[in-house]
């Protein structure tokens, strides 16, 4: 536990030691704002809720989360510090968890800085704050799921750009799998069971449910098991890569 915390702290400080943190947060806030007001028609909808705000999160995360995740392992391998890290008295699992939690916490910080919109909607009307809390929880869980994919992909290469592209692609597939354009491809030939399975992998379907205020334990469990799966894979990838 202690080692995970020490690694996470170092990693989080690493984000803020470079302009990356600032750029990420500014762009995230600017884009969430722009999307909410211009594409989401926050005012024109005339409703006191944050649907217009949350509905664009999956699309923002698709680009921004792989950008945060890409350095986690690729940079360690490129600079050789992975040899230092892995010869300190730290297990691979501790290192994987420490790095993941740091990156996830960083997303949490960015997400929490969107609080002005929550205040705004409360001034303008009387929203269901429970639904909004659920939306934030769902958004944070989804960020975690995408981050675990990104961290795992980052461990596969020394090259941050490759890590970014692969992570963005895998995240895209997971996000899109519930949309009709993907499901139609399966409808044509696959039995309903497979179509449902593919649809159930989708971030969008689950995230939509959560932002409407329904925190279903199955959805929470889905995100948590997804994170666990990719972190487990991450550990294996790190182990395999260092001995090759």
């Amino acid at each position, binding site marked *: 536990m202690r*080692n995970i915390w*020490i*690694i996470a702290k*170092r990693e989080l*400080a*690493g984000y803020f*030691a*470079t302009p990356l943190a600032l750029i990420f947060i500014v762009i995230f806030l600017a884009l969430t704002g722009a999307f909410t007001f211009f594409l989401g028609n926050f005012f024109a909808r005339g409703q006191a809720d944050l649907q217009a705000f949350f509905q664009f999160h999956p699309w923002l995360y698709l680009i921004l989360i792989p950008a945060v995740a890409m350095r986690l392992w690729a940079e360690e391998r490129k*600079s*050789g*510090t992975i*040899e*230092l890290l*892995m*010869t*300190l*008295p*730290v*297990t691979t699992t501790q290192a994987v968890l420490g790095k993941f939690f740091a990156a996830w916490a960083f997303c949490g910080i960015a997400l929490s800085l969107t609080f002005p919109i929550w205040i705004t909607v409360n001034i303008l009307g009387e929203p269901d704050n429970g639904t909004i809390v659920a939306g934030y929880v769902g958004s944070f869980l989804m960020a975690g799921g995408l981050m675990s994919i990104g961290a795992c992909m980052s461990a596969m290469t020394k090259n941050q750009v490759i890590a970014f592209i692969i992570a963005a692609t895998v995240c895209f597939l997971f996000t899109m799998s519930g949309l009709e354009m993907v499901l139609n491809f399966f409808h044509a030939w696959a039995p309903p069971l497979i179509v449902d399975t593919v649809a159930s992998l989708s971030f969008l379907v689950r995230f939509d449910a959560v932002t409407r205020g329904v925190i279903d334990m199955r959805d929470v469990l889905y995100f948590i098991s997804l994170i666990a799966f990719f972190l487990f894979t991450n550990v294996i990838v790190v182990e395999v890569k*260092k*001995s*090759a």
Partner: protein
Amino acid sequence: MSDMIVLENLTKRFGDLTAVDAVSMHVARGEVLGFLGPNGAGKSTTMKMICGYLTPTSGTARVQGHDVMTEPMAVKAAIGYLPEGAPTYGDMTVRAFLRFIARIRGFDGAEVDRRVDRVRELADLDEVIGRPVETLSKGFKRRVGLAQSILHDPEVLIMDEPTDGLDPNQKHQVRSLIKDMAHDKAIVISTHILEEVGAVCSRAVVIAHGKLLADGTPEDLLRRDAHHNAVVVRLAAAGADDLIAGLSALPQIAGVEQLTGDAANTQDGIVGFRARPKDGASIVVPVGEYLRGLGVTPEEMYVEHGHMDEVFRAITLGGETRAGTGA
């Protein structure tokens, strides 16, 4: 147990390539072991296995009684390791980096600062302690890596090319530091700078193509050079041929050769020659007595100790150098 590091048939294969081939050796407390070999010989791979970074294909390494295969965490906790190139987290300041290492090594509270202060002094990092590592010169980066490796005052220290890329003063400083620490630790350093072996190591092993080829004190290795204990004499050219013939006849002497080319370095009227001993024995006394007996006063006379480069070449290339021409 005085053997701090034990390697038993340590082997690493990468596909078809056998990087380290059944290396066995012991390193005791108080020894500074120089790990020599050409690039790609398997030095770094061996060190990475001892430190628990790479898993051996077969065989094992034990550090202070802990087996790297079954107790990797105990081994990692016991060892101080300076990886090749001394990688450090560039975006951290030197202080933050060393504090991170201290914490991960299990120190808390005031002890963290005490440890960091100690290595800051040992590695002479005062002037850069607050600067980001990536802004430092190569020499300072290397010292930060060194400071990191000795932070927990380990009894086993493994350093992969600790002086690579340093200027002569910095090399001297790092070597003094290693020598100061040597008496109560087992230290392994890899290098391809051969002068380093004589300067800091109490023992040297030579590895090439993954195999252990030689193991002994630096003097043992030098003794393998045919020029070890050879005597070089320069004197007036007149009558030198007879003198050389006479010297060659001495029972202690294996052969005498006239120096030519650059090695000769003679002015007009002066010749130089080298008398090689049999079995590496000291021949300066018989040579001196012989010359005195003839009433000849040499311009110059000195004993050669052999060249580590030649020994290294002889061992790693498998023979065809002057070491093979002796006796």
